[in-house]
């Protein structure tokens, strides 16, 4: 894998723009997944992931080919996502009360899709719930939890991506786990 990536990067640096498409193909799903889990919706995830690849392209000269490309692109992608989240207005939650209503929540306003088999609804609901809980985590814990449990990365790799000492990454994962536990234990 790393040898292929080195070859592709060399081709891009030599001016073969199309070779960049190969690089995007190799990493798009991983980058999109991280972006999606960070920002919580498909539209913004696409924006974030695209921006990450464009930044990688522009700064490719600064990439040290002796290192893992995945670490570098994850670092760019999480930084882009964090920037977006900072600029964004605070989220509303589906369980929040609709303004000017007594006991109407956004959740109750959603149309129920009753033509789906029951199992599928449960799965989709569960997925949405898990994603919602991930998005409720403070960003610094969220990044660490996503990289650890959804990308299955080692603490050392996470520390390189987040540019933090391993001990700090551990603390963030511990706190993230505790926060999730408190919210998820009753289910």
């Amino acid at each position, binding site marked *: 894998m790393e040898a292929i990536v080195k070859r592709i990067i060399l081709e891009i640096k030599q*001016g073969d*723009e*199309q070779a*960049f*498409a190969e690089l*995007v*193909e190799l990493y*798009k*799903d991983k*980058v*999109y*997944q991280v972006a*999606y*889990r960070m920002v919580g919706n*498909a539209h913004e995830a*696409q924006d974030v*992931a*695209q921006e990450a*690849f*464009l930044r990688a*392209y*522009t700064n490719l000269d600064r990439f040290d080919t002796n290192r893992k490309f995945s670490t570098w692109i994850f670092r760019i992608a999480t930084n882009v996502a964090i920037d977006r989240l900072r600029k964004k207005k605070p989220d509303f939650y589906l369980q929040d009360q609709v303004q000017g209503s007594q006991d109407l929540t956004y959740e109750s306003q959603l149309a129920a899709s009753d033509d789906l088999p029951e199992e599928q609804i449960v799965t989709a609901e*569960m*997925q949405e719930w*898990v*994603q919602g*809980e*991930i998005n409720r985590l403070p960003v610094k814990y969220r990044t660490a*939890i996503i990289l650890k*449990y*959804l990308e299955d990365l080692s*603490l050392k790799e996470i520390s390189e991506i987040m540019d933090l000492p391993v001990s700090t990454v*551990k603390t963030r*994962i*511990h706190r993230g*786990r*505790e926060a*999730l*536990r408190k*919210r*998820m*234990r009753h*289910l």
Partner: protein
Amino acid sequence: MKCEQSYEQLIHKYLDGEATSTERQTLEKHLNECSHCKMHVRELKKAIAFVQSASHIEAPKDFTANVMANLPQKKTTSKTKSTWKR
């Protein structure tokens, strides 16, 4: 709870896969005696399992094409030309 604080670090070390076998034994022994800590570990494991159950999602089909369509124009050729002209 008193024991929770002293065992919490060990519990997380254990979950990170970094507890030594002696530490694991200490923790296991404690969990057999302390229902509070046992519950704590169970809830943590449950939370991790929930997060891991989030299915992997793929980038949209036209993703690569969109990135390629938005690549910045290579300035090299025009730049060299204009420098040459001078």
